[in-house]
């Protein structure tokens, strides 16, 4: 018996898994996606990854990014190390690729903010905003 918490949707169903006659049986899921998640979780767990990458822009030191799909869970530490070497020097925006087919996973890492876009209203030096040197 293993308990899995489904992370597909906010319901967060607790799915019980057990082995019966050489096959997995599942209970507690409320939908097919939950069943699919539990199955994958037992064999080859997948996760999406969100993090930040460094930029060259003053006052905007980091840009939020995410994988545009799921990657094998065990690849996450390697992807994080790979992204530590990325430095953004173009004013890219939401959905634009930061690293294509990261480590051959077939998944791209994309920007998730328009922080660097000049169209985005921003005034460095505003209260609580980047651009305020705190040191």
């Amino acid at each position, binding site marked *: 018996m293993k308990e899995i918490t489904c992370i597909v949707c*906010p319901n*967060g169903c607790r799915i019980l898994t057990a082995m019966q006659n050489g096959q997995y049986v599942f209970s507690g899921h409320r939908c097919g996606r939950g069943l699919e998640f539990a199955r994958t979780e037992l064999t080859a767990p997948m996760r999406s990854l969100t993090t930040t990458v460094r930029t060259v822009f003053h006052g905007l030191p980091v840009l939020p990014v995410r994988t545009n799909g799921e990657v094998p869970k065990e690849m*996450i530490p390697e992807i994080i190390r790979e992204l530590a070497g990325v430095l953004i020097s173009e004013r890219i925006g*939401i959905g634009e690729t930061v690293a294509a087919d990261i480590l051959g996973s077939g998944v791209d890492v994309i920007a998730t903010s*328009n*922080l660097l876009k000049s169209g985005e209203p921003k005034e460095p030096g505003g209260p609580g905003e*980047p651009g305020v040197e705190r040191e």
Partner: protein
Amino acid sequence: MTVLRYNVTVIGGGPAGLAAALSAAKEGAEVLLIEREARLGGILKQCIHDGFGLVRFGEKLSGPEYAHRFIEQLPNPNITLSMLTFVTKIEKQSDGFVITMVSKDGIRDIFTKSLVLASGCRERTSRQIGIHGRHCAGIFTAGTAQYYTNILGKMPTKRCVILGSGDIGLIMARRLTLEGAEVVGVYEAKPTASGLMRNVYQCLEDFNIPLYTSKTVTRVFGEGRLCAVEVSDVDACMTPIPGTEKIIECDALILSVGLIPENELAESIGLPMDYRTKGPVTDQNSMTMVNGVFCCGNALHVNDLVDYVSESGEAAGRAAAGYLQKKRSFAELKADDSFLYIVPQMISLTERKEPVTVYFRSKTERGKTRLTVTVDGSEIYKKSYSQLRPPEMERIEIDFKGMQIRPDSRICFALAEVD
């Protein structure tokens, strides 16, 4: 100097305020949207993790992406934006409100017919939970640690203890681990986690970060910078048990010990508050007990999903745009002791709108439960749940259409175990 006039003024440019301003503008209102920071989006700007928008858009978006879905609808001809602006005073007049605000342009007053409070919530701090010890650096709220990591790009810790298992604490446990910090453990004084189970699973279990329940931090140590914390077991009343103390070396203590609606402005205009939600009392049209003042999002009650914050903002914006200066009569929605709270707390009998959306949280963790709503003793609504947990807000819609409801009607919400 002429005073500028607006139909609707929205205070706060986070997800609730953005939704409120856009929906009021859609109804044709002249809207002023006031934001104290330099960028719209509120706390979503620093919530770079995903999971936002599953209910609303059927997609797993990050916080900035979710906010962008609303920000990209601007500019809007009916919305005037006032950024880096702080409201200092609200004064009620017979036909509306005079709002005093401070911005780079100086101090100015505007007049508005109705007002939407969308000021969000604040994190409970170390002072509010009475942690003993030195006043050293290294004690952060989870939101501050998140700001350092995700906006300033600076690591607030190398090795930390997290106190409290609220969602932001769980999210930060994962985030700091990914960035190379060591999270010694998450300590929770209650017997169960405060955050969503899916976050316990994907943020702690995935990274082998231990969750210790019925334990709390009782002291902090450090000259200048934090160097250790003392943790203790607690009893059922959350009182530390002497003799169970343990010292953990760390350079930071990160707090995720609850969120409180930010309502200083609401209190300044004398809005009756609900001690359970810590937000204003509202009717089904998101209007507070003061005519013309609406409240939405986390300022009204702390939500666990931004999707519901947007929904609440839209409802408040729409209602504020259509606000008629009418005297209201109310019937109270009474929730029994099994609820942590219900929102709204009142229904206006003057402006009936069906169905009524009700949000609630159970006070305790429950198994199979039936919710019933009765009006003067007759059941009008029931729903069964396989489980209810205080961290997970529930949403129901109740149709009171055709029902004779008077100010003295007894509208009761109850939860009962079922076999």
